[in-house]
């Protein structure tokens, strides 16, 4: 049986009088890809933030590799995010003054690696994601899709076990989206890592092995599926 890497148990969260999450329970198996879908305000980003230890729930708990993370102090949760998790945001959110390779190397450097040791693996990741020769380009000199690949490399260069992606293709056109999803899937669940994607896009969700749909803070559908493959080259 596949190991459960993340487990959410009866998560509840309120923002004022609004109930963002209403007793959500979920288990994620290691090495799988899961899409969290739902309309705006359905609670999907809140759920992602709780699974990643960014937000602590009003009630309920989150376990990572069997260990509770919701009650950890902020510094411990930060360390966990640095060492075990990777993040891909909608806009990439890379540091514009740094080059592509420096942006990727920053993640291991935050874990204590020296730059000279971090740059090599960072460059390897950029190569693997089709960005060979672009290591020294600044973020403003890259296209949206290329910048998003840099963000994917940054999320994984530390050997993160879980990658959280919040609308990773939200700012891209459909052809570029497909390329970015190919890169994201092949480098994560294709490599035995766990991928959790929040998305509005059914095409993105169709590429994942499992689709969890939220509405008004509750899971209304949870479907395992054979993920669609995509022929677009990386």
């Amino acid at each position, binding site marked *: 049986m596949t190991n459960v890497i993340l487990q959410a148990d009866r998560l509840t969260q309120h923002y004022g009088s609004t109930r963002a999450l209403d007793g959500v329970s979920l288990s994620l198996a290691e090495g799988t890809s899961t899409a969290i879908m739902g309309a705006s305000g359905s609670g999907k980003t809140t759920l992602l933030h709780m699974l990643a230890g*960014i937000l602590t729930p009003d009630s309920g708990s989150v376990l990572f590799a069997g260990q509770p993370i919701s009650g950890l102090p902020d510094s411990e949760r930060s360390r966990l995010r640095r060492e075990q998790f990777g993040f891909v945001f909608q806009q990439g959110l890379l*540091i514009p*003054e740094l080059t592509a390779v420096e942006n990727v190397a920053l993640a291991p450097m935050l874990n204590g690696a020296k*730059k000279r040791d971090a740059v090599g693996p960072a460059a390897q990741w950029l190569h693997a994601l089709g960005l060979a020769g672009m290591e020294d380009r600044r*973020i403003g000199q890259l296209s949206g899709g290329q910048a998003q690949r840099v963000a994917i490399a940054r999320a994984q260069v530390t050997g993160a076990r879980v990658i959280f992606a919040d609308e990773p293709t939200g700012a891209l056109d459909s052809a570029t989206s497909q390329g970015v999803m190919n890169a994201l899937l092949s480098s994560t669940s294709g490599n035995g890592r766990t991928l959790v994607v929040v998305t509005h896009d059914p095409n993105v969700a169709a590429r994942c092995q499992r689709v969890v749909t939220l509405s008004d803070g509750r899971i209304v559908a949870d479907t395992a599926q054979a993920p669609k493959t995509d022929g677009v080259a990386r």
Partner: protein
Amino acid sequence: MIFRVLPLLSRPSRQGAAGLILPGVAFASVTALLAIVVGGAQTFWAFDDEMAPLYWFLAGLALTLMIPPLLSLGSAAAKLSARRRDDRLAVLRLLGATGRGTAGLAVFESAAVAFVGAVTGVLLAYALSPLIGMIHFRGEAIGAAQAALPLGWAALLVLTVVLIAGLSAMIGLRRVIISPLGVAMKQSAPKMPWAQGLVAVAAIIAAIIGAQAVSNLGGDASMYAVIVGLLVAFAVALLAIDLIGAWVLSLFGKARLKRAQTPVELISARLVLESPRAAWRQVSGVAMSSFMAVFAGSGIALMGEASGADVELTGPEQFIMADMRTGLAIVVIGTFIMVACSVGVNQAAQILDRRDVHRSLAIMGTPLAVQDGARRKAAMLPLAVASLGSASVAALLLLPVLGMALIFAPLSLITMLSMIVLGTLIVLGTLFGTRPLLRDAARVESGSRASE
């Protein structure tokens, strides 16, 4: 038409009220400082003895020294205002507003903030005039009435500050006006022309040789010619420092980048290299005052030697040393406060502009200390280069004129070092003051609604 939408655009943006309040406070501080200095200096215009021209010259010099930090602060404050609304102005352009209309709106809003700040600053200066009146020149307090700025001058000061803000806004928003889509595109880091650096180095060497030649003229030339010659040499050196500053800073930034092994070192070096000119402008006031501190320190040491001699000074001459010390302290404090305001406003603008990046770094698990350390180092490097670099150039310039003994006299060194330490502490205090803004920008768990 465009002014009809002004009230709508003036509503708080996502950056909150900070984008309005910070430039307002900065303009208020700078106007208050200028009003106090100009107000205090008017005492000197009433002097009519043989020492009066020296006082007028020094007062003029003090005011001139305060202009670069004022311009830098004006530009920083206008930039912060611009950041607050560049997205809105770009939307207006996309909706069909003309370039002139958009520019008018930007200038009007920035000038309005500067006007409110400047009026507040003048009122603050008036409120402080009883305290300022207690400062002693020529052995007696100048008095509250003398320290207060005449109304006409105050109006002129407000107008000047408003003009500077308007011009800075116009320059800062050129990109919005030129292209509604290209507001925040950052392409490649600017390259510093090495020829500019070489010209500046040549000018400094020429100034040093010139100063030596003039001081060697001795009895062959009139005292007046020697003073003018030295002043020209110093002015050339000062201009050269301003020309070379950004270039030297980019060299230091590159060296730091090469050595960088930690995130703090890497990010801070890249922040400096992103715009060495902007980083230099932020601290160019310190460069000027450090340059002058060497002159003042050596001058005070020289006068200390003179007063230590058996000659008993009488009349206005007996106060000159104490008055120069007082004047120097006022200029130094004023300059550093303006630099601190400029650094503070720049830092605030940077934090507000990059709040998404700050938050994403925090989500990745980046400790606040790393983000804070990077911006602190990025601000301190230009400060160190500006203060130590320009003090060194001034010392080189004075070496042939005064000799090593006077330049390195304890009194000179104490004056120079205390100025540099004071400036560093003020800037550090400012950085510390903007830390809550960074903490807020980098907050990942605020109890507020997540991004959806």
